[in-house]
């Protein structure tokens, strides 16, 4: 049974606040999300080392060390709660037992932490979408899909509390369309291809989660909108294009919730606030304290509506202070103390305003992440029916928001960005309202990149 969201779970912008959701969620060892507190979500990865069977003992030793660091640092910093994310590297998904072994290892540390300190905590596990090993990707059958689903299953059995993914359906077309600034291709990739793959994949993930009583935690448009953000950050793409892609990407991520996911959404899913407004589910976000993994122009505003605050990923290397995961854990804990102090002293609106206003006038990408923009985009999405129409509506709303921002002198764009915004607006307006009218054109343009049967086309 599919959930179709026709209204907003949070219809009042004033309720769209960090640390609060209408649908609080309890997971793991008593971690209650969206119930009036923001918690750190710590993420980490290996230092430079081979990830092969012959080096497996050294890999396990790294995660053992990270587990010990988490226990020690949590005991020292005493966060009111903690989410740990274990994001599998590709070989850990290709060998499902590897991912499961490390899941079990990290669970042991969290269990010990909870036993020793009483700190509520949970483990999110994110297998890698390895279905894009072939070109064009074979998404609905084949060994990679089998291994991916086995990985979900085995990580669930090993004790993951939340399961997520950054799925890649549609990315093969989106990458090309993005590089060429082809907005029609972008909307097709997100609204037609990615959304169809999300339906296919998330029905399976939700079934595995239901079987093992694990929380289906949602997907991330990382491979789409964050690719755009990074290319814009390097000056290769207009920021306004990355902003519109960000908004348009929320619909393919929403499909996970239509299929039964209930959050918390992934940290790198900057489309999370729209998901939160529509579904009421808690969300993870990342921003300034994720600069260990990547830079962004949305460091503060990204925090405005979060329920978990993440560092995205940090290598287990040594810094002057100590291990990098501990250093970033400390940053997150201090960030969360501020969120929670604001909530406790009822100054959260003021703090949220500061987070938003300090960023949104400097970048269109930050502008579309404000609570006001979030509400507008979310409203545009639920007003429409069908993923293509919703994706198009979200993109158009983002373009309108940017134009209004410029007109009201809330946002400054240089002449090249302005030209691109005009071009994007024009091209979005010219797109058909029915996806059938574009599928044939897109198959002609991008048919060499994707397999139609991977999307049921």
């Amino acid at each position, binding site marked *: 049974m599919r959930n179709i969201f026709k209204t907003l779970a949070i219809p009042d912008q004033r309720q769209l606040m960090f640390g609060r959701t209408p649908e609080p969620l309890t997971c793991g060892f008593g971690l209650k999300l969206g119930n009036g507190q923001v918690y750190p979500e710590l993420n980490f990865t*290996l230092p*430079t080392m081979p*990830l092969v069977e012959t080096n497996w003992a050294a890999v396990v030793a790294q995660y053992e060390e990270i587990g010990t660091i988490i226990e020690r640092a949590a005991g020292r910093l005493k966060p009111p709660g903690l989410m740990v994310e274990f994001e599998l590297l590709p*070989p850990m998904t290709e060998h499902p037992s590897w991912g499961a072994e490390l899941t079990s290892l990290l669970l042991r540390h969290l269990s010990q932490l909870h036993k020793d300190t009483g700190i509520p905590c949970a483990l999110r596990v994110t297998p890698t979408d390895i279905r*894009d090993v072939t070109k064009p990707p074979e998404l609905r059958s084949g060994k990679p899909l089998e291994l991916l689903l086995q990985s979900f299953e085995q990580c669930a059995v090993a004790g993951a509390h939340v399961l997520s993914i950054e799925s890649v359906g549609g990315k093969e077309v989106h990458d090309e369309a993005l590089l060429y*600034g082809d907005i029609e291709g972008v909307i097709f990739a997100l609204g037609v291809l990615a959304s169809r793959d999300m339906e296919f994949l998330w029905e399976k993930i939700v079934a595995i989660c239901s079987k093992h009583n694990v929380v289906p935690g949602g997907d991330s448009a990382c491979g789409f909108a964050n690719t755009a953000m990074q*290319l814009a950050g*390097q000056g*290769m793409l207009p920021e306004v294009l990355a902003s519109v892609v960000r908004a348009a990407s929320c619909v393919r991520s929403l499909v996970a919730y239509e299929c039964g996911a209930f959050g918390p959404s992934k940290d790198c899913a900057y489309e999370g606030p729209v998901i939160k407004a529509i579904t009421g589910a808690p969300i993870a976000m990342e921003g300034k304290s994720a600069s260990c993994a990547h830079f962004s122009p949305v460091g503060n505003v990204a925090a405005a509506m979060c329920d978990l605050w993440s560092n995205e990923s940090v290598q287990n290397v040594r810094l002057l202070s100590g291990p990098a995961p501990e250093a970033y854990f400390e940053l997150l804990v201090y960030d969360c103390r501020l969120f929670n102090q604001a909530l406790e002293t009822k100054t959260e609106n003021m703090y949220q305003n500061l987070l938003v206003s300090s960023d949104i006038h400097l970048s269109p990408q930050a502008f579309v992440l404000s609570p006001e923009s979030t509400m507008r985009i979310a409203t545009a999405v639920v007003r429409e029916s069908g993923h293509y129409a919703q994706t198009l509506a979200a993109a158009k709303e983002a373009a309108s928001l940017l134009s209004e921002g410029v007109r009201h002198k809330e946002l400054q764009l240089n002449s090249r960005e302005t030209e691109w915004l005009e071009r994007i607006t024009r091209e979005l307006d010219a797109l058909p309202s029915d996806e059938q009218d574009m599928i044939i054109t897109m198959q002609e343009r991008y048919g060499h990149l994707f397999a139609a049967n991977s999307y049921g086309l």
Partner: protein
Amino acid sequence: MRELQDLAQLLEQGESQKVLALTQQLVDSGVSPQTVLNDGLIAGMAVVGEKMRNGEMYLPEVLQSAGAMKASLKILKPHLAREGAKSRGKILIGTVKGDMHDIGKNLVGIMLQGAGFEIVDIGLNVEPQKFVAAITEHTPAIVGLSAMLTTTMLNMKTTIDAIVEAGLRSNVKIIIGGAPVSQKFADEIGADGNSRDAVLAVDKVRQLIGHTS
């Protein structure tokens, strides 16, 4: 020659149809295809590369110019072959074993092609022995290795080791690129250079191959 300057400018503006028409017109009027290539197309792409480096052009605009150049090359190629013209150099690129990222590699290929180099792209998740076989088959001047993960960047070394073992190391220069790699890492694994982005990759290749423009 005025027409060659026009060709360079049209290319910079991404005017594909006009670039194609003018290329054909120049060849038909007896201008040497090598001159059309060097003083028209490559000169135009050099300005494009410079503008991108200075933040004055975005990638979609660069790709439009690169596409126009690629189409014009189809017109020039048979003529260049008849003249026995030499390529500026052949570059073999690929993402190393275990790594599925290809946007960075593709951009490097496009920028190098725009600069007049011949590109052989052997894809992603490429085994070291496949690099060795491709070097033997295509005899490139430069091999470009790409990796985006801390756990796959070490396969750049494995690949270089395989090239050394096959006795091919002295035949090629090797450059590396990708988010986690650095010049220090390039030095450690025995590569000849590292490039932070696709535009700088063109400079690095020119430097290694001995071209100045």
